[in-house]
């Protein structure tokens, strides 16, 4: 990631790609909440950064003033293609009603509780196989060798494409999300995804299978087939939104357990804590920040927002707000009052939340069953990515 110029005050010049922010955004949010809860920056176009739970939730619910037509935290800084394939971006995430409503309805059943249960055995086997591959070494990179390997393969299964493509998928998704400030890499990732899905779509028009792509191609909305541009956007979304995000949540959770032996030991001893523990880890280490674009000049919490400004949906900061959570920086595995918004709030609630939650749970269950005791091998080797999605990218751990 490119080095960014030093920040001159987080209230007026914040930078979500600043190395210090990526490593530890928590203290910065604490300071902002007290002094200037909605910060501003002109670094990548006029952008606002709320830090309070209440503000983030209010913004997420006001879809009239805060549109989802642009959800990238880092605006695309390269040349737009003259003949764009994705006329509607990546619906439903990058759309407002009514396109949001119809595309979301097509997608949701694929990630329902019932369907997700059907992906559980495959996920468990995958996790077990991965661990068996490195357990005897006594060490592993919990991000690269484990967390990163899981979601791309599960998503490949849902899309009906070979799991051997998982590494390629991960590369494209990182280009789009993690290296978004590099226009060339971002364009490369998008092009890779689109070329791939355009070919897959052509193939499924003649030979439909039992998968999400085939169903989208043969679905109807109000009696008309779904435009190919919409299908491509939805397929790209499932991949982009389903890989980095979940992998980051798994990685952050393993980082927490590697650095907090009391929580690790407690979770091993009391597996019944898993459901609340998962929610708590999602709260404390929420990976995803989204964006909205202001539709018309509006004042929000005293801030004069202009049409076209970007507002970052800072769900991770909302989830650390002491007004909403007692001892927010403390991970409490059986926290009872926990209305966290790691998966967003309102009509854009993450469509894949059931899947993400299942993958996180199975990944931790299988890890703890096989490796109940583990530690960071060297704190200095750990690296984090941030911006749209925060999580560890290198996470070397040792286990006896």
């Amino acid at each position, binding site marked *: 990631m490119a080095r960014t110029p030093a920040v001159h005050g987080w209230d007026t010049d914040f930078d979500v790609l600043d190395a210090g922010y990526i490593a530890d955004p928590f203290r910065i949010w604490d300071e902002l909440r007290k002094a200037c809860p909605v910060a501003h920056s002109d670094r990548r176009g006029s952008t606002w950064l709320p830090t309070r739970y209440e503000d983030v939730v209010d913004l997420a619910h006001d879809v009239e003033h805060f549109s989802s037509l642009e959800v990238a935290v880092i605006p695309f800084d390269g040349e737009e293609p003259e003949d764009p394939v994705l006329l509607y971006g990546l619906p439903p995430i990058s759309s407002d009603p009514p396109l949001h409503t119809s595309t979301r309805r097509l997608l*949701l*059943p694929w990630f329902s509780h019932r369907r997700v249960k059907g992906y559980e055995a495959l996920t468990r086997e995958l996790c077990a196989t991965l661990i068996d591959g490195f357990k005897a070494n006594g060490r592993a990179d919990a991000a690269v060798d484990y967390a990163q390997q899981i979601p791309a393969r599960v998503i490949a299964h849902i899309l009906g494409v070979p799991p051997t493509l998982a590494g390629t998928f991960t590369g494209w998704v990182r280009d789009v999300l993690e290296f978004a400030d590099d226009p060339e890499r971002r364009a490369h990732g998008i092009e890779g995804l689109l070329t791939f899905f355009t070919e897959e779509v052509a193939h499924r028009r003649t030979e439909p299978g039992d998968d999400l792509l085939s169903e989208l191609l043969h679905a109807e909305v109000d009696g008309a087939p779904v435009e190919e541009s919409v299908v491509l956007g939805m397929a790209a979304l499932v991949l982009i939104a389903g890989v980095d995000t979940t992998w980051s949540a798994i990685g952050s959770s393993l980082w927490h357990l590697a650095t907090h032996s009391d929580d690790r030991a407690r979770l091993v001893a009391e597996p019944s804590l898993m*459901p*609340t523990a998962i929610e708590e880890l999602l709260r404390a280490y929420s990976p995803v920040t989204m964006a909205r674009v202001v539709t018309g000049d509006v004042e929000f919490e005293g801030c004069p927002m202009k049409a076209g400004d970007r507002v970052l949906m800072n769900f991770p900061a909302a989830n650390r707000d002491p007004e909403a959570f007692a001892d927010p920086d403390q991970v409490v595995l059986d926290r009872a009052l*926990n209305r966290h918004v790691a998966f967003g709030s*309102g*009509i854009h609630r993450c469509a894949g939340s*059931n899947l993400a939650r299942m993958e996180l749970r199975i990944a931790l269950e299988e890890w703890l069953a096989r490796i109940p005791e583990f530690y960071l091998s060297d704190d200095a080797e750990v690296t984090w990515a941030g911006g749209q999605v925060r999580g560890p990218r290198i996470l070397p751990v040792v286990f006896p």
Partner: protein
Amino acid sequence: MDPEKCEGHARCYGLVPELFNVDDYGLSTVVGDGTVPVGLEAKARLAIANCPEYAIEEIAG
């Protein structure tokens, strides 16, 4: 359960499947008429305290 507020997080069903149903679009409803059986009060309150949309309410019987 207020269906107007529910956005399908399914946190209630995930934590307390004994008391909630969820459909293929994520929308949750209470099991039966919503009466909480004796012994499940704490779990019912856990579901309420985990709903990000404030869609579940406790009604004293």
